[in-house]
């Protein structure tokens, strides 16, 4: 290499150019537009504004509940590469555990006091999340740990786990349907002008947003969140930086299961009657949502859940027969546009 003054200047300039070149800042904004565009598109199709409001809120509420149930699963898959086909079991267990609080506490539930109602709900949610969290810990230890990395076995074993869990619910709670009554102040509607909006749906939207914001903050502002996001991309490198990421796995699995339990309580109250299959029925929908969102992306899961729920509600009004398979159609459409989901996580 020559070292004349000229050459040195050339090298420095080139260095400065290439090293200092600012990368083009790209925020992937397209998926963010889907929900607003869809809602706007639906308005002329639905025709009446009040109906549109009802449908949209219903869709948002359902979407939030699905998001809560699905968010845990997408993180578990993204971080641990574990396919838990039994995730629905935690939804069912959460819903049934809520009956242990809400059914005995009739006076709080039937009282016409928002405070008492919220407290009863709060207690039910706490117990449900505790039970599903512990169940998740046991599930990870006993069922999942022996089959890390073996996808086929994971699929089979977690499906088996789901069947066993459903049947155990039948053993413990009996095989008949159990009604889960909505607390008194959550019933009924708020009236805004011409539109009627169910109170419970607004509560669900509120809780869903709170969960999303909490997850966003944890993932983006804490060290653990940093580790999770890095681990979803490249587990090995995180270990090479000195972190025992396997310990994190258990934590994420427990958190994901507890979230499913929370979702189960909300979903159970939404449906108002419980059967052991309530989690199994929702499994396919949860899978569809996390595929749409991109395996490992919480943001994608959020958009996907609301998208699917809105489409189901709009279609239910506009073309009921289509509504039944609308979730699959949405999935196919999204995958044709982005084969890895809305926000594919950049894998190693």
């Amino acid at each position, binding site marked *: 290499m020559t070292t004349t003054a000229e050459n040195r200047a050339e090298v420095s300039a080139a260095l400065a150019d290439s090293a200092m070149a600012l990368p083009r800042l790209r925020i992937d904004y397209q998926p963010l537009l889907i929900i607003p565009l869809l809602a706007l598109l639906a308005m002329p199709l639905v025709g009446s504004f009040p109906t549109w409001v009802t449908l949209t809120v219903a869709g948002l509420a359902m979407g939030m509940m699905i998001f809560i149930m699905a968010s845990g699963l997408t993180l578990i898959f993204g971080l641990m590469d574990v396919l838990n086909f039994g995730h629905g079991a935690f939804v069912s267990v959460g819903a049934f555990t809520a009956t242990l609080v809400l059914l005995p506490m009739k006076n709080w539930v039937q009282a016409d006091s928002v405070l008492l109602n919220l407290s009863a709900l709060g207690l039910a949610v706490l117990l449900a999340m505790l039970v599903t969290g512990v169940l998740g810990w046991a599930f990870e230890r006993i069922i999942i740990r022996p089959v890390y990395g073996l*996808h*086929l*076995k994971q699929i089979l074993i977690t499906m088996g*786990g789901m*069947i*066993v869990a459903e*049947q*155990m619910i039948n053993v413990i709670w009996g095989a008949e349907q159990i009604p889960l009554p909505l607390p008194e102040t959550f019933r009924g509607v708020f009236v805004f002008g011409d539109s009627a909006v169910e109170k419970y749906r607004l509560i669900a939207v509120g809780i869903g947003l709170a969960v999303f914001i909490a997850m966003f903050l944890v993932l983006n502002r804490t060290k653990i969140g940093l580790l999770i996001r890095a681990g979803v991309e490249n587990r090995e490198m995180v270990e090479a930086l000195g972190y025992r990421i396997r310990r994190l796995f258990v934590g994420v699995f427990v958190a994901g299961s507890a979230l499913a339990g929370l979702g189960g309580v909300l979903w159970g109250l939404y449906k108002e009657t419980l059967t052991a299959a309530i989690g199994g029925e929702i499994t396919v929908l949860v899978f569809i949502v996390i595929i749409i969102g991109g395996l490992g992306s919480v943001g994608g899961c959020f958009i996907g859940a609301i998208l699917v729920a809105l489409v189901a509600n709009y279609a239910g009004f506009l073309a009921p027969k289509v509504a*039944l398979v609308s979730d699959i159609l949405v999935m196919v459409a999204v995958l044709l546009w982005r084969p890895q989901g809305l926000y594919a996580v950049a894998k190693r």
Partner: protein
Amino acid sequence: MMLNKLLSGDFPRSRILAGLLLAIFLGLALAPFIASGARPLNVAATICVFIVLVASYDLLLGYTGIVSFAHTMFYGIGAYGVGLALNGMTPGWGAVSIGLACALTLSLLLALVIGLFSLRVKAIFFAMITLAVASAFAVLASQLSEFTGGEDGRSFKVPEILQPGFRLIDAEIFGRAVDGKVITYYLVFFSALALFLGMLRIVNSPFGRVLQSIRENDFRAEALGYRTVIYRTLGNCLAALVATLAGALMALWLRYVGPKTFLSFEVMTDILLIVVIGGMGTLYGAVIGATLFILAQNYLQTLMGQASEMLSDVPFLAQLLHPDRWLLWLGVLFILSVYFFPIGIVGKLRAGVRRKS
């Protein structure tokens, strides 16, 4: 020798296994005359159909290495094809042929689409997507009630020779009237036998060996010049077609189609359980597994019922053993088999031979 050709060189390779297979074969061949009554014959026919259905799934999972949950869809298509044709047209072999032809065509098309779609997505995606597709199909079948009979399904008349009222000969053989039911049974039996032997031929052919090499390491197979896409898709299509035929046979036997019997997730879990317990990638595993499973499903539940009654003072135990909780024990068995019987019964029997020699 002839047995070699018949089994395409794929011998049981274990005396116990061979003995079991022979016993099952004889039992199924002579079923109408071994026991009397409708139930044992129904069990036998179900075993025949499930052997074929599970073997076709083994072709997909055990030999090609593809995890799909859409298999019941093809089973259902076969059943509904034949069933709806016999329902809508005059019951006769013409209707059967048309229904079967339509079903096979539809299955082939769907299998092609699904197979090619699997290229764009990873294996995990693919499994989840097949689950979604299968459930959508089940929903469609139960919702398009005018066409499919909805949740309740449809009963229909079968061709005359297969009808229960039809008598081939007036005499009785071993106490069994040789009626349409028996004829239908032998139709099912011989078709199942032919299909099974056909599958043995396929997996032991050069084509089958390529499938297995793709399952082991598809990069290497690709490097050796095999277009894995084509082989995988063909494997998909073959498995789907056989499943369709199995569905058609079952529909002819039951003289009924309905979403719960043919398209439900329970059927898919049954198939998975049988293929895992029997032994993946062996085809004979389907025979052993299906026999064990169907026998247990029918007769174990009775046992459970009796045990539950005996324990009626201990409510929790009584609940655990309640015959409706059959699935609970299935699930436990399922989990245990995946851990402790990863090679299945057939694998264990064959391994025993190898250790001795």
